């Protein structure tokens, strides 16, 4: 084998990750002179015959199919503009927002979404020039009424969600809060125990490299909740 690192090892830009080109190059790596190098400061993942590097820091880049949490920043004649903590902004067309018939000249688009509203929204398509189209078709998409939004690094989102949503379901069940984790690192929390839920999510982010994190968090939540009563 020509791997020179172990999976989840930390790598820096320009560092060799495969000494040879018998691996497929996934995202975050490039091939030169018969070797594969990392593009990012991040962690390397080896598949059976592919290799990729996940960046540790960096801004969220929209990808098709992602559910994200954004804020409406502009209402136009037939569409809304959505910002979501990224270098780019998204555009939500009226036809992707509702199935109702809307008379553009008569009806007020702010009845649906107004400037400042938080929404859970799907990235429908991203062009090469980074024009981002959004959609509200997915059943997880909705206007977020009340609650609050906290921010975590986008690279930690998979850890907060956990395998098959295990981690976030646990926080959800124990605190009784409504939680939506956007792929862009924005997390919406609503409920009586929102403080605890936010604290727990920050704890998951801080300790994301620990083993048995699900159990640790479970114990942490049980302890905290006991103290309340």
């Amino acid at each position, binding site marked *: 084998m020509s791997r020179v690192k172990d999976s989840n090892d930390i790598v820096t830009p320009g560092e060799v990750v495969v000494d040879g080109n018998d691996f497929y190059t996934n995202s975050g790596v490039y091939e030169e002179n018969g070797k594969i190098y990392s593009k990012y400061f991040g962690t390397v993942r080896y598949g059976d015959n592919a290799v990729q590097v996940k960046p540790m820091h960096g801004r969220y880049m929209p990808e098709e199919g992602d559910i994200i949490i954004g804020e409406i920043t502009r209402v136009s004649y037939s569409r809304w503009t959505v910002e979501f903590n990224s*270098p780019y902004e998204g555009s939500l067309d009226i036809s992707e927002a509702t199935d109702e018939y809307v008379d553009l000249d008569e009806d007020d688009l702010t009845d649906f979404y107004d400037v400042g509203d938080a929404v859970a929204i799907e990235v429908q398509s991203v062009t090469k020039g980074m024009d981002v189209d959004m959609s509200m078709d997915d059943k997880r998409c909705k206007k977020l009424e009340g609650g609050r939004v906290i921010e975590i690094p986008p690279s930690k989102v998979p850890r907060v969600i956990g395998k098959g949503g295990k981690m976030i379901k646990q926080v959800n069940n124990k605190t009784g809060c409504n939680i939506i984790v956007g792929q862009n690192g924005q997390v919406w929390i609503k409920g009586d125990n929102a403080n605890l839920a936010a604290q727990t999510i920050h704890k998951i982010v801080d300790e994301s490299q620990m083993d048995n994190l699900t159990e640790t968090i479970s114990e942490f939540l049980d302890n905290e909740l006991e103290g309340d009563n």
Partner: protein
Amino acid sequence: MSEQEIQWFDEDGKRIDGRDKDEMRETKMEADVLSEADGSAMVEVGNTRVIASVFGPQDLHPKHLIESDRAVIKMRYNMAPFSVDDRMSPGPNRRATEIGLVAKRALEPALEMEKFPKTGIDISMEIIESDGGTRAAGITAASLALADAGMPMKGLVSATAAGVVDDTVVLDVIGKEDKKGNADIPIATINGGDEVTLLQMDGDLTKEQVDDCISLAREGCAELDQMQREALHEVYQTENGGDQ
């Protein structure tokens, strides 16, 4: 001539600050030093101290600078008023504009700018203290800050200078050797390897000395490259529990 008045080397062949001819100054690097910036780094090379910050990719203003197929770098090189022996009047001047431009050109070949069309990346190099080699230290710091900001890049850029004093080639010139010596050549390389992204020259020197300076400075760059990687590993350690 002032060169005759200064004794550049003592009887052991050591330089005025006690280093060997091919020895770098004591260098410290730390990445992720600022919490508000997307990426940041501090580099200390002897008495020269630089803090670099990176914001972006983000919206670019003014709009007419936008490129539809790639990101645009806005580079700022700034010396603090207290960074030199006599107070320096603050604000950009001809020298700062020039160094900002060459530093930008030294970093650009290492960056994958096509990944972020229509955006701008703001890089700032603040010289806190200056004792020669500020542009080299600035480039080293800026590249570290870019990696910390999660930019996709071909590799890290490291830079140092080699110079000639008393007709002898020396590595990593200090302020005095720079001002009173014969010549200096700052060089930047990608991954401390063959690809040179910055090469300037100031002063009089022979063809052989140019070759010697370049090969000496490239060895220095390779050494700095290793230190940059260690600094990044340090960031990972502190972020994920410093107990290892």
